[in-house]
C-alpha cells in the first residue's frame, strides 16, 4: 500500500468532508491527517478505488463526529474563524452556508451523492443505511438546500 498515492487520490475528498463537519481549516486538517494515519496503522484490503475512497469518507466522518461530540468543542466557538468563513461565504457563495447548516446525518450523504456521484445503492452500502431510509434523508436534504435537482438517477 503506497500511502502517498492514496493520499494524492483522496486528500481533497477527505478534507472537504472534514470541512463540511468542522467548518474550521485547522480542525479539518487534523481530521484529514488522522484518517490517513488510521489507514497506515490498519491497512485495509480495498476492492476498488471507490471502495478506498468510501472507507476514507466514512472514517473521516466518524472522526469529525467524535470531535464534535467532545464536551469542550460544544462550548468552544472560534469567533475569528466563524466570522472569516461567514464573510467568505457571503461574498462567494449562498449555497455553502446551507450545506454547513445541514444536520450531521445528512452531510456525508449529500457530499457522496451530489459531489462524488455515488448512487444511493452504493451510499447505503458504505454507510450501512437502508436504501429507503437514505432516500427519505435525501429528500429532507434537498428540501433544506432548496435544490431543484432531478431524481431520475436515483
Amino acid at each position: 500500500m503506497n500511502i502517498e498515492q492514496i493520499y494524492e487520490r483522496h486528500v481533497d475528498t477527505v478534507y472537504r468532508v472534514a470541512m463540511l463537519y468542522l467548518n474550521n481549516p485547522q480542525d479539518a486538517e487534523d481530521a484529514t491527517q488522522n484518517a490517513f494515519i488510521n489507514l497506515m496503522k490498519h491497512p485495509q484490503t480495498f476492492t476498488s478505488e471507490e471502495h478506498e475512497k468510501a472507507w476514507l469518507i466514512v472514517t473521516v466522518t466518524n472522526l469529525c463526529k467524535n470531535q464534535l461530540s467532545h464536551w469542550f468543542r460544544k462550548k468552544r466557538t472560534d469567533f475569528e474563524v466563524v466570522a472569516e468563513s461567514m464573510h467568505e461565504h457571503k461574498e462567494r457563495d449562498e449555497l455553502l452556508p446551507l450545506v454547513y447548516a445541514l444536520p450531521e446525518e445528512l452531510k456525508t450523504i449529500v457530499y457522496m451523492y451530489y459531489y462524488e456521484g455515488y448512487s444511493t445503492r452504493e451510499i447505503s452500502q458504505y454507510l450501512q443505511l437502508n436504501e429507503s431510509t437514505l432516500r427519505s434523508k435525501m429528500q429532507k436534504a434537498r428540501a433544506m438546500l432548496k435544490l431543484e435537482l432531478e431524481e431520475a438517477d436515483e
Partner: protein
Amino acid sequence: MNREQLKASLERLSPSEEQRKRMLDQIHKGAPSNKRLPFFKLGAALAALFALFFLYTELLPFGENNKSAPMAAEAPTADQAVTESVSMAGSESLHRGADYDFLLEHTPWKAEQTPASLPVFAKQNEDKEDGLQTERMEIPGEDYTYSVPVESTYEAQIVAFLVHYSIRYSDGTTEESQVSMVRTVQVKSYDQALEELSQGKNSKQRAVQQSQVQSGQLLYVEQDDELIPIYRFKVQDEWIDVQAIK
C-alpha cells in the same frame, strides 16, 4: 439552485497546495499537527504530568535517604507510597516530595475557579479505531430492535461515547440516529470541601481548623481506570484529600 452550483460550492472547500503538503508531512510523522493544543490533549498531558510527579516523588525518598538521615525518617517507603496511591481516592493523607509541595503551594486552587461539574477521564483504549469496523450489539425493544455499533471514543482519556442507533420497527422501516454522551460529575465548591475537611467529613483524618490549611488544589487522581477530581489540601506539611464529587 442546481447540482452544478452545489458541486461548485463543495469544490471551494478543497485544501490549498500548502495545506496538502503540510498534512502529508504530518502523516509521514504519524501524528496530527499540534498547531493548537486541544483541551483533550491538554487533559492527557496533565494526567501524564501527574503520573510523572507521582513517579518522581516515589523515587525522591531513596535519593534523600542517601543524603540525609533525618529526612529519611519522614519520607515514606516505596511500599507506603504504593499503598497510598491505591487509597488516594479514599481520602488518605499523602506525603509528597518537596518539589511537589512547592508546586501546589504556588498554584493554589482559587475558590472562584471551581466549576459546577467536571468530566471524568478514562484510560485511552488504543484498540478502538474509527472506520468501517465497528463492534455491534443487538438490544431488543418492545416493538423494535436496536442494532448498535458502539464506537467507544476513548481518545485522549476523555470518556465520550458516540452511539449510532439503527432502530428497526415492527413494520420493517428503519431509522438511523445517534447520541453522544460525556460522563460528567457534579463537583463540590472549594469552600464546601474546605468545610468538610474542617468537620472531618469525607476524610479519614481528624478534623482540622480552616486556619491550619496552608493551600488547596483541585486535581485528578486515578481510581478504577478512571481519573476523577479530588480536592487536596495541605495541612501542617501533610496532604489531605477530600472527595470532590458530590
